[in-house]
C-alpha cells in the first residue's frame, strides 16, 4: 500500500479531567478505502470522531489531510475541509423543517433530493425533523453529508438505529462511494457489516490503537480478541433451559392492537423463559413494549398475568405486577446529571414510606452489589451522562436488579454496545431466566436471538408472523419471517 494517505492521525490524545478518553491514537485512511473503526465502549471511538470533525479539540497530536496538518475548529470547518460526519445522535434540529435544516448547513437542496431519490426514499421538506421517524432521519442525515461531496465520510454507528433493509442500503451506498475514489470511516458494532464492506479495520482499546488489519471474512475472532485484550469474553454457547413447564405461563397477550402499526398480537411467555421479538422497523414492536410497560394504552386486546386479566393505566401499575421496562433510548431512562448510585437506587423508592428516612446502609450494599455484578465502570460515577453508552445501559438494567421483578421488557438493550458488554448483558439475561424470571427481548440484531433467547416471535405488519422454537431461530428464518415470507 504505497498510496498516499488521505487522512493521517498521529499521537492523538484527549482527557476530560482525570478521565483519559484517548491516549495515543495513530492510523491512516487511504483514498478509496472503507476503514472500520472498532473498539469496546469507552475505547475512545466517539472522542476520536469528535476530534476529527472539529467538535472538540485534542490535547495533543496531529491530524493530516492529504499531507497537510489541519486543525478543525468546528463541524462546519471540518465539512469545508472535506470531512463530513454522520454522528451517532441525529444532528437535525427537531423544531425546524428539513428544508431549513438543509439551509443551516448550506446544503444544496437539489443535490440532497437527488441523494434521497437514489436511496429510493421520499422526504417532505416541509416536515419538521421531530415529525420524522428515527430511521428516515438517519438516512436524511446521511444524504445531507453526501450532498457535501466529502473526501472522507465518517459514519458513527449509523446502522445501529436502522432496520435490516435500510442498513443494507447504507452499505451499498458506501460501496458506491468507494467506487468514486472517496473514503469512509465506518463505526459499527455489527461485525458482519464490517466483514461485508470494509477494507481494513483499526481497533482501539483504552484510547490506543492496538491493531490494524485487513477486514475479510473470518476476521471476527481477531477483531473480538483485540477489542477485548486479555479479557476472555467470547460469545458463549447458549445452553437451553429445560425446566420450563407449560403451566407456568406468566404473561399472556391476546389480540393486542394500538396505534398505526400494532394490529393484533397474541403470545405467551413462561416463567424462566427468554422470549425474543424480531421485526423490521415500524411493525408495532415499540408500541407493544410501551403497552406492556403501562406507558401506552391498547385500543384492543387483553393482557393476562398469572391468568388474571390486568389493565395498566400507568407504568406504576405494570411495575406493581412485577413488570420492569428497559427502554430502547437510554436517555429517557436515566437521570443524566445524577450519579450512578442515585440512578441505580431510583426504583428503590417504592420500598420507602413517604417522608421516611432512606436507609443508606441498605441502599449502599444493594447498589454496590449491582455495580459489581454488572461490572459497571465507575471511573465517571458522579454523573451518568459521562459514562459510555454500554455502561449507561448497564445502569438502566441494574436499577431493576436492585429492586427485583418477574418480567423484564428489554427493548434493543445492546444497540450501540460493544461485543464484550453485549456478552455481559446476555449473561445477565440468562441469569434472570435461571432464577425463574421471564424476559421479553426485542433486538434489531437478529443473531442475538439465538445468543440470548429460548424462543422467538417475529412481528410483521402488526401481527405475529411466526413463533419459532430455539432451533429454528437462525438468522435466515427470522429474516424471512420478518419480511412476511413464511410462517403464521
Amino acid at each position, binding site marked *: 500500500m504505497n498510496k498516499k494517505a488521505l487522512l493521517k492521525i498521529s499521537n492523538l490524545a484527549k482527557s476530560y479531567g482525570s478521565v483519559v478518553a484517548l491516549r495515543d491514537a495513530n492510523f491512516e485512511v487511504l483514498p478509496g478505502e472503507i476503514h472500520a473503526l472498532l473498539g469496546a465502549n469507552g475505547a475512545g471511538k466517539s472522542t476520536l470522531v469528535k476530534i476529527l470533525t472539529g467538535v472538540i479539540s485534542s490535547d495533543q497530536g496531529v491530524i493530516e489531510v492529504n499531507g497537510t496538518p489541519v486543525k478543525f475548529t468546528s463541524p462546519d470547518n471540518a465539512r469545508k475541509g472535506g470531512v463530513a460526519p454522520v454522528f451517532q445522535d441525529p444532528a437535525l434540529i427537531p423544531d425546524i423543517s428539513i428544508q*431549513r435544516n438543509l439551509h443551516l448547513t448550506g446544503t444544496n437542496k437539489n443535490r440532497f433530493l437527488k441523494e434521497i431519490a437514489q436511496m429510493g426514499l421520499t422526504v417532505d421538506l416541509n416536515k419538521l425533523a421531530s415529525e420524522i421517524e428515527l430511521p428516515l432521519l438517519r438516512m436524511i442525515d446521511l444524504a445531507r453529508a453526501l450532498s457535501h461531496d466529502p473526501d472522507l465520510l465518517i459514519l458513527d454507528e449509523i446502522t445501529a438505529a436502522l432496520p435490516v433493509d435500510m442498513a443494507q442500503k447504507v452499505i451499498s451506498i458506501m460501496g458506491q462511494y468507494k467506487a468514486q475514489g472517496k473514503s469512509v470511516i465506518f463505526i459499527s458494532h455489527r461485525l458482519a457489516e464490517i466483514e461485508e464492506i470494509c477494507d481494513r479495520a483499526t481497533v482501539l482499546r483504552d484510547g490506543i490503537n492496538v491493531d490494524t488489519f485487513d477486514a475479510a471474512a473470518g476476521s471476527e475472532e481477531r477483531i473480538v480478541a483485540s477489542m477485548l485484550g486479555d479479557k476472555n469474553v467470547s460469545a458463549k454457547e447458549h445452553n437451553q433451559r429445560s425446566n420450563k413447564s407449560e403451566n407456568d405461563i406468566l404473561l399472556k397477550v391476546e389480540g393486542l392492537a394500538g396505534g398505526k402499526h400494532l394490529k393484533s398480537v397474541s403470545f405467551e411467555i413462561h416463567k424462566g423463559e427468554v422470549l425474543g421479538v424480531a421485526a423490521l422497523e415500524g411493525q408495532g414492536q415499540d408500541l407493544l413494549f410501551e403497552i406492556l410497560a403501562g406507558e401506552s394504552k391498547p385500543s384492543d386486546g387483553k393482557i393476562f398475568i398469572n391468568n388474571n386479566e390486568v389493565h395498566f393505566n400507568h407504568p406504576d401499575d405494570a411495575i406493581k405486577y412485577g413488570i420492569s421496562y428497559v427502554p430502547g433510548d437510554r436517555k429517557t431512562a436515566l437521570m443524566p446529571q445524577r450519579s450512578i448510585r442515585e440512578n441505580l437506587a431510583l426504583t428503590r423508592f417504592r420500598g420507602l414510606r413517604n417522608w421516611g428516612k432512606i436507609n443508606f446502609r441498605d441502599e449502599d450494599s444493594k447498589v454496590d452489589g449491582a455495580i459489581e455484578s454488572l461490572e459497571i465502570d465507575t471511573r465517571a460515577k458522579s454523573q451518568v451522562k459521562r459514562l459510555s453508552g454500554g455502561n449507561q445501559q448497564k445502569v438502566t438494567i441494574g436499577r431493576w436488579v436492585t429492586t427485583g421483578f418477574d418480567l423484564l421488557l428489554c427493548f434493543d438493550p445492546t444497540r450501540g454496545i460493544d461485543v464484550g458488554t453485549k456478552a455481559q448483558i446476555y449473561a445477565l439475561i440468562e441469569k434472570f431466566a435461571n432464577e425463574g424470571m421471564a424476559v421479553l427481548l426485542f433486538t434489531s440484531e437478529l443473531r442475538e436471538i439465538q445468543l440470548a433467547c429460548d424462543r422467538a416471535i417475529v412481528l410483521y405488519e402488526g401481527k405475529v408472523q411466526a413463533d419459532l422454537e430455539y432451533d429454528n431461530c437462525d438468522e435466515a428464518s427470522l429474516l424471512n419471517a420478518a419480511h412476511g415470507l413464511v410462517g403464521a
Partner: protein
Amino acid sequence: MNSIKLKRQSWNIGIILIALFLGSWQVSRLPVFGSYEARTFLLGILPIALLSMGQAIIIIGGGINLAIGAESVLINCLAARFMVDKSFTVAVALTIFFLLISVLVGALTGLIISKSKIADIIVTLATSFILIGLAMYIQPSPGGGMNLTLAHLISGKDSAFLPPLITLILPLIVIWLPLYRSRTGIAMFAIGSNKDSAFLSGVNVDRTRIKLYAIGGLFAGISGIALTAITLSGSPFASISNTATLNSVAGAVLGGVALSGGVGGLTGPALAALILYFIPTILLNYGIDPAYSQIITGALTIFVVLVGGLIRNRGKKK
C-alpha cells in the same frame, strides 16, 4: 396553504380570534369608535408589544432576558433626559444613538452569558439591577421630555392612529422578516431547539446568542423610545421594569413561543399584548375590581397555553 402549514399557524389563528373577540366586545362597549379610540388602543399596547417581541426572539433562541424591562426603562430615561428641548434633527440623531446603545447593552448581555456559561436567568437578573441603577442615576426622578414633532411621528397625535401602528408593525417587517429568512434566523430556532445539534450543524452558538440578545435589546430600545414619546417623560422605577419584563414573558408565551425554545414567531406575541391590554380594560368598563382582572388574565394565560400545548403535542405524536 397546506394542512401542515395551517396546523403550524393554528396558534396565531387562535390568538387572532381571541383578540378579535375581545376587541369587538370592547368596541361595542364604547359610545363611539373612531380613529381616536383606535390610537388609544395602540398606545396602550405599543411598549409592551414591542417588548414581548424582543423577549420572544430571545426565548425562541433558548434564552430568557429578565433585564428586558430594565433595558427599556434605561432607554426611556436616557431619551427623556437628553431629548428634552432639543431640535427635531438632534432628537432623531439621539434616537438612533440610543437605539445603538440598546443594541450594545443587549449584545453585552449575550456576550457575558456566552463566555461565562452562567444561566441566562441569573445573568439577566443581575444586569437588570445594574440597568435600573443606571436609569436612576441618569434620571433620578420622573421627568424630562421629548421633541414634540418626533413624539408625534412615533406615537401620533389626537386621532392620528397611523404613526403608532407603523411603529408597531415596522419592526416586524424591517427586523423580524429578514431575520426569519436569514441563516441567523434558522440558527436562532436551531440553538433554541437543540444546542448540540445546532453546533454539529455548524452553527456558531455563542455568536448567534449574542446577535439575538442584541436584536432583543433593539426591540427594548424601540419600546423605551415609544414609551418616552407616549408619556413625554422618563420614569426610573424598578417596579415599572419588573412588571414590563413579566408582561413581556407573558406576551411571548401567550403568543405561542415555547419557553423551552425553538418554537414561535413574533406576530403571536404582538397580538398577545393586545389581549393582555383588553382584559383589564373591558373588566374596568364593567366596574369590576382590578384584582379580578389580574386573576382572569392569569387564568386565561394558563388556559391558552394549556390548550395550545395540547394541540401542539397531539400534532407531534406519531
